[in-house]
């Protein structure tokens, strides 16, 4: 039994672009303990998003494996991976990935529908989170009617409402103003503190480095330090 919650072992991801092989992630070994705040730093195109996507099982590695709570997520069945993503892992995308034809409430609700197939959705919880993020008035708005910052907040609420034990956030403040970025980071840190969540953040800036337990710098698909 590993003492780490997340482990990347000899992780590689290669793409073929214009008939050339690109090593987006090149032999990365990484260990993250429970409740840690980990920052993966790097310039655009360094391989942060690819690494994050590999760590949460959204894409398959070319080589190596990712272990989450001693399960190799590349080897488990789709059913197990879905359960992991539903119950333990929350993902905040750089591009929010909200469903454009669904309202704010529905976009949040959809994250827990498979969990609550036979139960009632806890609407009160969703509404209180919307209140906390000053989005209660936008409950029936479509994503296109929201500002970029508000869309990111909806994406965060969608993750929070699932109450995961690990959150992967890809540039969560990348496209918002400083004030909204502060709000978002504060809520993520509060969540980490209150709910004992492991937080893995990919960023190209120097945000909240002072709060991080570990900072990894990635360059050309390799961990630098």
């Amino acid at each position: 039994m590993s003492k780490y919650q997340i482990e990347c072992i000899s992780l590689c991801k290669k793409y073929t672009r214009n008939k050339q092989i690109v090593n987006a992630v090149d032999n990365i070994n990484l260990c993250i303990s429970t409740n840690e705040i980990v920052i993966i730093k790097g310039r655009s195109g360094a391989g942060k998003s690819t690494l994050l996507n590999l760590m949460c099982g959204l894409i398959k590695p070319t080589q190596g494996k990712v272990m989450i709570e001693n399960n190799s997520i590349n080897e488990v069945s789709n059913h197990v991976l879905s359960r992991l993503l539903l119950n333990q892992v929350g993902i905040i995308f750089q591009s929010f990935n909200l469903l454009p034809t669904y309202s704010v409430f529905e976009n949040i609700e959809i994250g827990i529908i498979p969990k609550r197939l036979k139960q009632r959705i806890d609407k009160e919880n969703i509404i209180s989170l919307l209140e906390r993020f000053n989005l209660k008035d936008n409950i029936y708005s479509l994503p296109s009617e929201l500002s970029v910052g508000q869309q990111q907040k909806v994406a965060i609420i969608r993750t929070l409402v699932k109450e995961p034990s690990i959150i992967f956030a890809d540039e969560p403040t990348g496209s918002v103003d400083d004030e909204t970025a502060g709000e978002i980071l504060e809520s993520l840190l509060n969540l980490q503190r209150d709910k004992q969540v492991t937080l893995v953040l990919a960023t190209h800036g120097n945000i909240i480095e002072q709060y991080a337990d570990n900072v990894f710098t990635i360059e050309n698909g390799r961990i630098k330090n």
Partner: protein
Amino acid sequence: MNYLIKELLRHRWRTITGITGYIIATFFLLLILSINSVNEKDSLGILKGTGTHFIAYIPSNTSCCVSCDNEGVNKGGSLFAEGVFTMMLNNDMITNIKKIPGVKDAAPYLLYKLFHEKFNTEISLGGIDTTNVATINNVCASADILAGKYLSNNPNEIVAEESFVMAHNLSIGDTLKLYGGKLILAGIINSGIKPGKADIYAPIENVRTILKEKLKCISPGFDMNIVLVEVTDARIQKRVIDQMKKEMNYLSLSSYNCYEPASNVITIIERTSLILSLIVFIFLIVFSVRTQLTLLMERSREIGILKSLGWSNSLLGRQIILISLIQSFIGATVGCLLGVLIIWLMNGNNLLFFDLVKFQVHFRSISTLIIISITGGTIASVFPILKLHSTTAGDMINNYL
């Protein structure tokens, strides 16, 4: 289910497009099946009645049976069939022949020929059971009448073949002194080429009376010299003939072999119909697969997001199947209703395609189409589901399908 209905309603245009595809496909398929059904019914109806008949008799001197004929030969007349003298047959033979699988009906026939000095030729007289289908196809029918009337209960009335009438300058109402009696020509007939063709015809009971003096053993139980046989379908005539020869090897069986080309054409029509239906089914499947794959492509990002949120492949797969089934069912139902309405309007206003092709809707076609559409929808959803299983959430979000 709530999400499913929301999904269908939310992407109204996508849903309408999917359903419209099924409507158009089903509508045209119904038209094809309706034309096909009428065509098949008409052509098979004609062909199934072609080559379904033959005659059975026992030539004289066959060593099987006791001949009760043929004093007539000595008197210048004889029972005959196809140019040979024949024996009288027992009524039990009709019963036995009718028991053979594939035999639709069998009828007695009494065919006699006698030389008449006045006409300076042999004149054949056929005694028929006028209403029997085997008689109609093997000898003559009321539909073959050219002038006058068909046979009635009048024991003196006969009908004569057109060629015979013309050769001897006869007219309707003429009284002919034939076979020792006075026979009135009631009708002129042209029966075409038939195995049991004669010069004149009369009901079999009357012919028995006419020939009573000429035949030695016209007695109960021996009423005919030929059995006219009708089978249910041209395709089984050979089998019936073989079976009869096996059971009654003393019989001589004779047909015009029309059943062979008829049987071939029926087979061709049935195969064409089957192939057409198969093409229709394949078309529907290909169309459905294409529709469902297009929907998957369009929803790729959305499905990728749902997968990343923890929606399992089985949950998403169920949705794809249900969406496909709902669309195919609604589309097929509306398409069928539309087809029925159009066909009803066309038939109501006597509109024919190319002045010839008529449409006829069968309930069976509608239910078949709905079942085919739903089956097509189900099969069509298999491919997107396979795609769903083989693609990761990340690739779907990035639309690497």
